[in-house]
């Protein structure tokens, strides 16, 4: 069953077309990532799917609830982790959790139990009474995620939750996203970090200028630019000395020499690279540097838009 069904969404702000005909589906219990540079329209989509913004055109269903016809139904199954730290900084982690739990309709002992569970989950039980204003950026991010989980939502939106935090906190957050998926939640994750989308996602939609330019699994997307690894080498001799020999090595699809660099396209760099070293030794040539570039989403984005993802 699809937890999220987005159908031809449009949204403009004056002359700016923020979202232009976006459609996608996310299966229940999976992680779906929207990958794209800043300004691609990811946050606008999240805002529409959260019912904060009304689309100019199109509709979406979250666990079967239409964002247009039943926004309260949508909100009841939804947890939203906004890009910003949307917490009351003068309140403690426990007070924040308790307040937001009430806003999700939790009361009494159930609320207390859930607050305890979530504080445990985000590793802040010991700091529960501390004011959020005194927390580090990473701790605030964890509370920011935690309050969205209090009511055990079926679908959770996470809008760039790792922006501006240290690597350790980032690692914790990525692990917690996987953990949520393992608990059966459907996660809609937006990021402009290719590595995060690649690591976490069951499905990825690459966005640019308000449109989805490609979507699918990581493997499906990579196929767009082909599956050959790119190995770039330098040697202590002229490239022409090895060119013909290496072209004949099993697994090498293509080889070229330019500006002192040898570029080898191979089906599997792990198999080809040892053969290249053996050949170089037999030719009495030393390989002085190696760089392997596997096909990735960066390459896909470059291929599709003509721009680097971080431009």
């Amino acid at each position, binding site marked *: 069953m699809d937890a999220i069904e987005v159908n031809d969404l449009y949204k403009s702000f004056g002359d700016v077309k923020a979202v232009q005909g976006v459609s996608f589906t996310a299966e229940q219990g999976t992680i779906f990532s929207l990958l794209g540079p800043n300004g691609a329209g990811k946050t606008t989509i999240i805002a529409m799917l*959260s*019912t*904060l913004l009304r689309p100019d055109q199109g509709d979406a269903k979250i666990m079967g609830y239409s964002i247009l016809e039943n926004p*309260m139904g949508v*909100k*009841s199954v*939804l947890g*939203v982790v*906004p890009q*910003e*730290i*949307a*917490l*009351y900084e*003068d*309140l403690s982690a426990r007070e924040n959790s308790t*307040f*937001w739990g*009430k*806003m*999700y*309709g939790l009361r009494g002992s159930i609320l207390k139990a859930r607050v305890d569970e979530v504080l445990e989950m985000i590793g802040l039980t010991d700091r529960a009474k501390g004011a959020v204003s005194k927390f580090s950026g990473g701790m605030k991010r964890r509370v920011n995620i935690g309050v969205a989980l209090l009511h055990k939502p079926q679908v959770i939106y996470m809008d760039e939750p790792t922006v501006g935090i240290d690597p350790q906190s980032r690692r914790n957050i990525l692990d917690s996203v996987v953990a949520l998926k393992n608990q059966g939640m459907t996660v809609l994750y937006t990021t402009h970090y290719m590595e995060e989308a690649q690591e976490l996602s069951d499905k990825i939609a690459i966005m640019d200028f308000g449109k989805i330019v490609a979507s699918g699994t990581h493997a499906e997307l990579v196929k767009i630019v082909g599956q050959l690894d790119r190995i770039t080498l330098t040697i202590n001799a002229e490239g022409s000395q090895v060119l013909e020999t290496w072209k004949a090595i099993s697994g090498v699809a293509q080889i070229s020499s330019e500006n002192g660099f040898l570029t080898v396209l191979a089906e599997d760099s792990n198999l080809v690279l040892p053969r290249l070293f053996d050949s170089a030794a037999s030719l009495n040539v030393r390989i002085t540097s190696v760089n392997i570039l596997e096909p990735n989403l960066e390459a896909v984005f470059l291929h599709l838009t003509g721009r680097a993802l971080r431009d």
Partner: protein
Amino acid sequence: MKAFDIAVKDVLHGLRSSIFLVFTFAIPLLITGLFYFMFGRISQESDFSLPTTKIIIANLDKGGPRFQVSTNSIPGGKRAHTMGELIVNILSDEEMADLIEVTLAPNAAAAKAAVDNQQAQVAIIIPEDFSQQYADTYGEAQIEFYQDPTLTIGPMVVRSIMDQFMDGMSGVKIAITVALDQEEVVTSTLIGNMIQQYITSSLAQSKDVEEELLTIIPPKSGVTDTVQEEKNMLLSIVTPIMGGFMTFFAFYTGTASSENILQEEEKHTLQRLFTTPTRQSEILSGKFLAVFLTVFLQIVLLIISSHFIFGIRWGAFPNIALIALGIIFAASSCGIFINSFLRDTKQGAVIFGGILTLSGTLGMIRTYGFISTTETLGNTVSLLVPQGWAMRGLLQVMDGAAFPNILITFGVLLAWSIVFFIVGVRRFNHRYA
């Protein structure tokens, strides 16, 4: 229920802010305390009195038209054959003894020398032709007033008495002139009657001045009554001040509390609230309820604490409760109204500094009716703003006005509130729709 949760959270947020607490509770009490101790100190200093002013008079008046004044009407039962003698007798009156001490000088130079040598603080030189000039239809009777320039209070007191005297004499002179024109008869009896009338009123006026200046001097006996009178006088000064600042800061609090909506918008917690299964109406109701509760808390605490700290008596409970409620409604809804027009909190600083200060000052004009001639105008102008009606209500309660009058003021405050609230709520609903 969620609205209440939001309201409680917002009120707690306010109470955790030291700046908010200072502006909401501390400053109104501190300002009132300042006035209280300023005026209270004066009244509590039992040995306080105006210093006696030493006057030296050179009465050179050689007389003019003969007039008779009953000795019963002249202070000390003395006779006055000239206008100069009349002035000397009035200033030498026993009633004035606490204020001024009169000695006579043989001539102007001696009188001035006494001031120069600091033997006297004021010299009054009555010229030779004073009575004659006074009697002359076109004459100009002048008295020379010579004072130590370093002194202020003593000479001011004397000058005040002399001003009244001269004003009164001018009136008499005009009256005489008119009488002469009409009757074409000059009789000493007529002049005497006129002078007698003046003296009676002049002495009465002098007594008024004396009383006015001496109201802060406690009598020698009746200690309990005196303390109570002092207290009453102090409260009559401090209570309107407290009421004024309570009103001013209630509107400030209403606006500052309402600004919390914009703050939440800027901190993205409001948007997050909108993603929870909570209706917009509940969220906004909670925010508005918080504003109301905060102002309610402020007004109640200020009324109670000012009663216990300064002994302020706010009047009958139903009356003050009704007006307090009116102020709470008006201040809260005014805050919601103002903030509904703001784009962000940056604009708030300008609004706070501008609109609230201006309207608050207008509203409090009647409290500080320092310019008596503009009092009526001030009262009218103050009613152009809700703060003015709030002050009117408080003053009515303090003065023990009839309940129907208080009810009218409450009704006007309620009307302001309803208009503010409807406009504010509509604008906020539209903003977040």
